[in-house]
């Protein structure tokens, strides 16, 4: 079964208490938002970090995407707050 690597950054990482996770790759038509909901249902830090999707942004295979993007064949999903560089 193919897997999907999930990376966390900034306060998402701190609340979850992990840098990354690996899950079985979901059905190709399931979206980033679906996966975030699935992770949030684990409760604890996951629920705290991922409960409010308005505060979250994501990247699939190192490209920014909106949360209703299907995961498709992506290998890496990153979940993080809005960026604050510069």
């Amino acid at each position: 079964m193919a897997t999907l690597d999930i990376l966390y950054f900034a306060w998402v990482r701190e609340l979850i208490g992990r840098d990354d996770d690996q899950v079985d790759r979901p059905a190709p038509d399931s979206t980033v938002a679906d996966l975030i909901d699935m992770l949030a249902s684990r409760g604890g830090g996951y629920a705290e970090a991922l409960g409010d999707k308005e505060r979250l942004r994501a990247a699939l295979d190192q490209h920014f995407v909106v949360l209703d993007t299907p995961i498709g064949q992506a290998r890496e999903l990153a979940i993080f707050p809005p960026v604050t560089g510069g």
Partner: protein
Amino acid sequence: MKQVSVQAEDFDVAAELSALEQVGGGGVASFTGIVRGENGLTALELQHYPAMTAPQVERIVEEAMTRWPLLGVRVIHRVGRLSPGDRIVFVGTASRHRTAALESCAFLIDWLKSHAPFWKKEHFADRDPTWVEAKAEDEAKAYGWTK
């Protein structure tokens, strides 16, 4: 000339400007960002997404080069732990004329703020550290360039 660096080390602004002056344009514009020490800030920590950061900044530079006739672009973004007064980011552009150099420099720094995977955490002497919240106005400013 097109060069992007994401690094912990400081950089030499004079050397970077000098390199841009040698690409044959009529003008060089630059922006240097400095860590502000206001509100009792003792350190600024920059986290990033290593596999994505440099490629994404390259894409932002490519975007600038499609919009303006640029002869040189140099972007340096530091990561890790910085102190007040430290340089954090450098954007330099060279073009035949000032408008392209100045406008593309402003575009690049706006897009670095809103389109590149960096996150800032502020550390203070007297209270817990906090992650910097993205400003809606920064996003609005960046999207203003889509016009």
